[in-house]
C-alpha cells in the first residue's frame, strides 16, 4: 500500500506544466529518434544525455526514461513501414509488421504495434513497481550456466523461424555465431580474425548489420523485382485502415503474455530484451490456431513482438534500481545520468531519494499515455510513408541507413559494413535462406560463448546438469528444436509414401 501512495505522490509532483512538457518533449524526441533508421533507443538516450545536465536530477531522469520508452516504440514504426528495425529487439516486430504493410494493411500493423507497445509498457511498469524485489532475487539465481541456457533457449526459437526450412535456419544462425567471433575474445582479450584492422577489434556493431540485413536487402530485392515501377499498394478506400476495438480485444492475451515474458526475461543484463521478444513470438506462434500465418502478416505476431519489446524497458530498470546494475545498454546510459547528478544508482536510491524513484515510476506511466496520444497522431503521418513512390523512398532509405550506421561509432567503416551486409542479406534471402537467424546468432554469440566458457572454468560441463534451472532451460530449448524438426521429418516421410 505504501508503494501505491508513494506512486500517487509522484504523480502529483508531475502535474505541472514543466514536468509535463519535459515528458512530452522526451516522448516526441524518443518517437522521432526511434523512427529514424539507425538511431537505437540507447543512442537516442545517449545523444540527448548532455541536454539533461542543466536540469534537476529528477527531471533529467524523467526525460531520459521517456525517451527510452518512446524510442522503443518508435523503432517499431520503421520496422513496420520499411523493414528497418531500430533495435535488435524490434527485429521481431518486422517479421509480421512489414508483410502486413506490403499487403496494403499498414494501418493494421501500425495500430496493433502502438496498442501492444502501450499495453506492454504498462505491464512492464506495473511489474517493476510491484515485484522488483522478488525479481531481483530471481535474477541472482542465474549463474553463467543459466545465462548460457537462456541464450540457447533464445537461439532455439530459430527452429520455427525459417518457416519449416530448419536446415537453412541452422546454417544462418551458425553463420551469425561464426561472424560474431570476429574481434577481441571476450575472456582472454586475444584478437581473433581482426587481420590487424583496428575497427574489427570490437567485431561488427549490431546496428549497421541489422540495417544492412533487413532494410538494404529489402531495397535491393525491391529494385531487382522491378517494384520501383509499380505504384505502392493503395489502401482500401472503403474500409478504415485502422483496426477496430474488437481487433485489439482479440489480441489481449497475446499482449499480456508477451508483456509478462518481456519484463521477466528483460531483467537479465546482456541480451535479455531481445531474447524475450523472440521467445514471446515463438510462444504465440505455437499457441496460435494457424501458425502458418506467422511471418506472412499475423497481427498476433506484431502484438507479441511489440508488447514484449516495450515491457522489457520495465524489466531493464529492475536490476538498475534494485542492484545498481544496468539491464540494457540504454539503462547503462541512465546510470551515467544518475552519476553526473551525484546520485548513486542502486537500492540506496529508494532509501535516500525515494521521491526521485517514485517520480520516475509515475513519469513512465504518464509517458506511456503520451506515447498513445502522439502515436495515434503520428500513425496518420507514418501511413503516408507507404504512399511515397519507391524511386524516392529507396534513396532516402540509403541516406538514413548510412547516417544511422555512421552515428553508432562515428566510423565510415561501419557504413561499409552496412552496405556489405545489405548485399549479403539480399543474396541469402533470394536463395530462400532466412536472415533473421544471422542477426540472432550475432546478438547471442558473445553471451553464449562467454557463459559457456565461464561455466567450464568454474566447474566443467557437469554444472549445466547439476543446476536445476539451467537443466530445465536446456531441456526446454532442446524440445523446442526437436519438435518442429521431427514433425517436418514425419511430414516428409508421409509425402514420399
Amino acid at each position, binding site marked *: 500500500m505504501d508503494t501505491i501512495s508513494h506512486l500517487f505522490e509522484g504523480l502529483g509532483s508531475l502535474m505541472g506544466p514543466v514536468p509535463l512538457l519535459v515528458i512530452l518533449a522526451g516522448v516526441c524526441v524518443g518517437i522521432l529518434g526511434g523512427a529514424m533508421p539507425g538511431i537505437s533507443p540507447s543512442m537516442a538516450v545517449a545523444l540527448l544525455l548532455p541536454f539533461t545536465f542543466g536540469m534537476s536530477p529528477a527531471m533529467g531522469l524523467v526525460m531520459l526514461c521517456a525517451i527510452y520508452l518512446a524510442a522503443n516504440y518508435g523503432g517499431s514504426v520503421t520496422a513496420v513501414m520499411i523493414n528497418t528495425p531500430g533495435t535488435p529487439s524490434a527485429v521481431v516486430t518486422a517479421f509480421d509488421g512489414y508483410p502486413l504493410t506490403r499487403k496494403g494493411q499498414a494501418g493494421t500493423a501500425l495500430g496493433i504495434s502502438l496498442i501492444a507497445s502501450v499495453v506492454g509498457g504498462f505491464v512492464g511498469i506495473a511489474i517493476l513497481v510491484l515485484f522488483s524485489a522478488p525479481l531481483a532475487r530471481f535474477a541472482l539465481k542465474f549463474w553463467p550456466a543459466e545465462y548460457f541456457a537462456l541464450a540457447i533457449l533464445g537461439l532455439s526459437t530459430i527452429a520455427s523461424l525459417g518457416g519449416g526450412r530448419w536446415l537453412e535456419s541452422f546454417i544462418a544462425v551458425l553463420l551469425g555465431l561464426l561472424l560474431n567471433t570476429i574481434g577481441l575474445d571476450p575472456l582472454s582479450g586475444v584478437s581473433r580474425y581482426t587481420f590487424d584492422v*583496428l575497427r574489427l577489434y570490437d567485431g561488427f556493431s549490431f546496428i549497421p548489420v541489422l540495417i544492412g540485413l533487413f532494410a538494404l536487402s529489402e531495397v535491393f530485392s525491391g529494385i531487382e523485382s522491378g517494384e520501383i515501377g509499380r505504384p505502392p499498394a493503395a489502401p482500401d478506400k472503403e474500409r478504415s485502415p485502422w483496426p477496430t476495438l474488437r481487433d485489439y480485444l482479440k489480441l489481449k492475451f497475446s499482449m499480456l503474455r508477451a508483456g509478462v515474458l518481456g519484463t521477466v526475461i528483460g531483467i537479465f543484463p*546482456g541480451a535479455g530484451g531481445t531474447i524475450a521478444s523472440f521467445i514471446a513470438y515463438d510462444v504465440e506462434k505455437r499457441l496460435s490456431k494457424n501458425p502458418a500465418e506467422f511471418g506472412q502478416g499475423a497481427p498476433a505476431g506484431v502484438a507479441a513482438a511489440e508488447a514484449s519489446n516495450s515491457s522489457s524497458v520495465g524489466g531493464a530498470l529492475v536490476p538498475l534500481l534494485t*542492484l*545498481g*546494475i544496468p539491464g540494457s545498454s540504454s539503462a547503462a546510459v541512465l546510470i551515467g545520468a544518475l552519476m553526473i547528478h551525484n546520485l548513486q544508482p542502486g537500492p540506496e536510491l529508494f532509501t535516500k531519494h525515494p521521491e526521485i524513484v517514485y517520480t520516475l515510476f509515475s513519469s513512465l506511466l504518464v509517458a506511456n499515455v503520451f506515447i498513445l496520444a502522439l502515436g495515434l497522431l503520428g500513425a496518420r503521418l507514418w501511413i503516408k510513408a507507404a504512399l511515397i513512390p519507391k524511386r524516392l523512398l529507396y534513396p532516402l532509405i540509403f541516406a538514413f541507413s548510412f547516417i544511422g550506421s555512421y552515428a553508432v*561509432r562515428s566510423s565510415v567503416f561501419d557504413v561499409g559494413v552496412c552496405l556489405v551486409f545489405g548485399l549479403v542479406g539480399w543474396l541469402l534471402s533470394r536463395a530462400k535462406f532466412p536472415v533473421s537467424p544471422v542477426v540472432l546468432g550475432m546478438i547471442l554469440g558473445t553471451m553464449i560463448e562467454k557463459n559457456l566458457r565461464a561455466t567450464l572454468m568454474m566447474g566443467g560441463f557437469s554444472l549445466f546438469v547439476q543446476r536445476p534451472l539451467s537443466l530445465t532451460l536446456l531441456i526446454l530449448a532442446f524440445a523446442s528444436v526437436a519438435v518442429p524438426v521431427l514433425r517436418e521429418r514425419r511430414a516428409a516421410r508421409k509425402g514420399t509414401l
Partner: protein
Amino acid sequence: MKRIIAVLCIASLAVLGASAAFAAYPEKPVRVVNYVGPGGLMDVTSRKFVSIAKKFTDATFVVENREGAGGLVGMQAVLEQPADGYTVFAATTSNIAKVLTSKKNVDDYIWGFEWIAMLMKDPECLIAAKDSPLNTWEAVFKDALEKKGAQIWAGPAAGGNDHLMAMKVWEKTGMSAKWIPYSTGPEAMMGLLSGQGAVYVGNGADIGGREGFTIVAIARKERSPKFPDAPTFTELGIQGLEDEAMWRGFAMKKGSPEEAMAWWEDLLKKVAADPEWREFLEKDGIDVVDYGRPEFNAQVKKDIEDATHYLKQYGLIK
C-alpha cells in the same frame, strides 16, 4: 591527386597552426575525446570536469565519444590529429594495460602522448559479499589456501587494471586463484552476490549505493576517510600495496605547444581546488590530485613497468 590533396591539407594546417601559435590558447573549441560511450565512467568524469572548468575559463569544450577496441580507437583518433593542443584524450589506467595486452607499440600509443593532467587516484579494493562467510581478508586467504587455486575472483576483462591488481595480491601473498572475467564490473558484482565468486576487485565507488558488499582490503597508505572500516593491506600484513589506484586524466599528442600544456596544468590546479569537484569525487572515496606532466609521466612509466612485469609473470603476454 591524393598527394596534392594531402599537401594542400598540410599547408592549410600549417597556416592554421602558425596563427594558433600567435594567439592565446585556447582561441577555438577544445575537443575532449573519450574512449567510452556517453554515460561511461570517463565520459561522466570529463563532462563534470568541463562543467566545473567553465567557472575558471571562457574556453569552449566539446566532449566527444570515440568508442572501440578498449580505447585504441580513441587514442588513434587523437594521434591522427595535428599536435596543436586542441584535441585532448581522456585517459584512464586501463588504456595502458590495453596497449600492452593487444601488443601495440608502446612508443606510439603511450609515449606518442604527453600526459598532462592527472585528476585523481581511485584506490583499488578487494570487495566481498557482506553475507558471505568469506567477508574478511583472513577468511578469504584461508579459503584460498584450502581450495588450492580454485577460488574464484571476479572482475572485468582479463589483463585489465583490476586483473593486474589481483595478480599483485596473489604474488605478494603467495596465494593463487582463478580470474573469471565478466562483461562489466557491475555484472561481476552481481556474480559475487549470487555466490559465484569469493572476491571482486574494483574500487570504492562500486559499493556506494549498492547493498550487500564490504571492502576486505584497500590499497591505500592509510584508511580511507570514506570507508573507515576497510583495513589497508599494510594493516593486514601485506607489504607493497600501499598505493595501487586507478587514475583518470588528460593527455595530449606529443609535440603540442608548450603554452597549451601549461594552460591545462594550470586549469587542473584550479579545478582540483574547487569544492564541487572535490565533493563529486570524494563522495566515492576517490583521492583528488592535481598532478602535472612530471608526476603524471612518472606514474604512466611505473604503470607500464608494473603491467609488463605481472602480465609476463602470469603468462598473458610473452
